């Protein structure tokens, strides 16, 4: 038993190391003096005297604005994706209607189209709708990609809600919308949180649309801003690594914030298991 738990702890530590090392490597690189960047023996400890790189990242670049823009896009994508996915997911899970299978399949199909292929048609549409060079346009484009995924994830969770609980609510006088909002949504909260993580990360990391649809410097997102450092002749490695490190942090914080909701067992106790 004890042997097992030690092995498990070791396995977790190894996985944790694999996952966290790139982040740590970014931190170390951003805090390594330029002359030691290309040493034959890599430097594994940060040089704290280089901490000024981080202050410089904020003062010498538009990082603050990029992060704010990214946050607006990511949060907007998350909220809109969840709002637009709950009802279709419920319908796919619980209702019987013509074309249900086709609709579900069509949602899947959207995932097979690469983003790059849609850039041109979306560009055309956004020009006509005056959504080009706006964060709203970016949110809509991202949402179009996340809604099918989130819908399918939520459908799976709603499938798992015992139908008796819904029937009890019907007998108790709940409308269909009331059942979804007051009974089903709270019961699938863990999955909602997981879906929110997916939508947030998509919005936060998205690059192709942000690069194509945004031309105004003040509206750039962090992913595009970060890429802009990579120059033809030189790349400021310290700044790229520092900005990259900062860029990663909000996503980690968001995950830590919602991960406590991503726990199983919310429906325990409602019906006899």
């Amino acid at each position, binding site marked *: 038993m004890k042997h097992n738990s030690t092995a498990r702890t070791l396995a977790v530590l190894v996985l944790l190391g694999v996952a966290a090392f790139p982040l740590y490597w970014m931190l170390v690189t951003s805090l390594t003096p330029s002359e030691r960047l290309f040493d034959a023996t890599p430097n594994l400890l940060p040089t704290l005297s280089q901490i000024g790189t981080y202050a410089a990242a904020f003062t010498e670049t538009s990082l603050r604005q990029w992060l704010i823009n990214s946050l607006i896009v990511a949060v907007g994508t998350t909220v809109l994706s969840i709002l637009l996915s709950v009802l279709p997911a419920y319908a796919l899970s619980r209702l019987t209607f013509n074309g249900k299978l086709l609709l579900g399949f069509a949602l899947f199909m959207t995932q097979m189209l690469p983003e790059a292929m849609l850039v041109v048609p979306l560009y055309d549409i956004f020009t006509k709708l005056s959504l080009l060079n706006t964060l709203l346009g970016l949110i809509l484009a991202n949402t179009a990609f996340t809604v099918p995924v989130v819908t399918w994830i939520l459908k799976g969770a709603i499938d798992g809600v015992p139908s008796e609980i819904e029937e009890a609510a019907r007998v*108790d*006088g*709940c409308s269909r919308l*009331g059942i979804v909002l007051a009974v089903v949504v709270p*019961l699938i909260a863990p999955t909602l949180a997981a879906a929110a993580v997916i939508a947030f990360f998509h919005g936060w990391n998205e690059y192709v649309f942000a690069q194509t649809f945004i031309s105004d410097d003040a509206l750039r997102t962090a992913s595009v801003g970060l890429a802009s450092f990579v120059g033809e002749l030189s790349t400021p490695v310290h700044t790229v690594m520092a900005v990259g490190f900062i860029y990663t942090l909000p996503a980690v914080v968001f995950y830590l914030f919602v991960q406590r909701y991503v726990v199983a067992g*919310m429906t*325990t106790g409602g019906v*006899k298991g």
Partner: protein
Amino acid sequence: MAIKLQNVTKSFGQLTVIDNVSLEAGDDEFLVLLGPSGCGKSTILRMIAGLETVTSGEIHLGGKRVDQLPPSDRDMAFVFQSYALYPHMTVRRNIAFPLIMRQFRWWFHVPFIGDYFKRRIENSPEVRGLVERTADTLALTKVLDRHPRTLSGGQRQRVALGRAMVREPSAFLMDEPLSNLDAKLRTAMRAEITQLHQRVGGNFVYVTHDQIEAMTMGTRIALMRDGHLQQYGTPREIYEKPANTYVARFIGTPPMNLIDAEVEGMTVRIGSSVLPLPDKAERPGGNSRMKVWLGLRPGALAIVPPGQGKSLPGTVTLVEHVGAESLISVKLSGVHTAHDDDGGLTDEVMVSVPGYSELRVGEAVGIDCLLKDFSLFEKDSGVRVGGRAAEDFLAGGRVGTIRTAS
């Protein structure tokens, strides 16, 4: 309020699961829908509640047709087998939920604002008082602010009952509410539900496959089989005057013995024994011979020394001691019995004798038939012979279809 089902049929595609069932339960009646798994009893209950549509026929509550109304407009409360509590709500909110729904407005859907108004309703003196009185009745006061997952099975079931009671509905519908509880708790909850019925009145419709629950709780029992109503009557009628061999074997533990016999005039022939029937016995008219199943409860048979009087000869095959009585299985020689209504023939009867029996397996015994309380069923159809029961429960249109056991 009276509940009335009129020629109710339910089909799923080509499959008819409820076939033309009619029954009527008067005010404050405790109606039990009884039958084995898959007989359609839960479907009937769900149709009464509005959780299933009716393919044809009508359902009336208190004289008002309700089968076209949504469940929330039928003024009925439903207690599910699986409790179906709202796991994310406290016990207090679970019980108050139907009351909150009564005052629900569309803007309650808006997050935070809706929560505020729901909490306000929950904390209003009227709702709070009602919830606490209900909780007090069901001994749930101490757990009001806990979540269902922290409660025991019995407590969860009581919360489900509380949620039903608090609405003060015209009818309580219960779908095997005790089947998930252990035997001891089930007995306690059985008494609680019976007391609840006596206290709050109203119609109860209770689905179970457990004949003990049906016999002890029901004021009227509808016994179902394969979507057909077999018999509808009081527990006593069903026990004493089963409408057919299926009912005879379903009700009573151990079940009624069905012995191959022949009635002629005022006598019944079993094997080589000819026994006189009592004067007031229900029997076929005229003096012609008729092949029948003679139905005798295990208590209406007695074990006597072999060869005594007109006893039937047999051999003991099993002795079961169940405390206050012993159950003795006896294989008869030269006499057939029906093991159950659709099974093959066996030659065994079961006899209950008071106290601890000293009989041994393989011992030769005689079986005396005490023809005081008995039933006769037509051999071919399995329908009760000459009895009043069938006519009784047909009168008044309470029963639509009686399917014979075959």
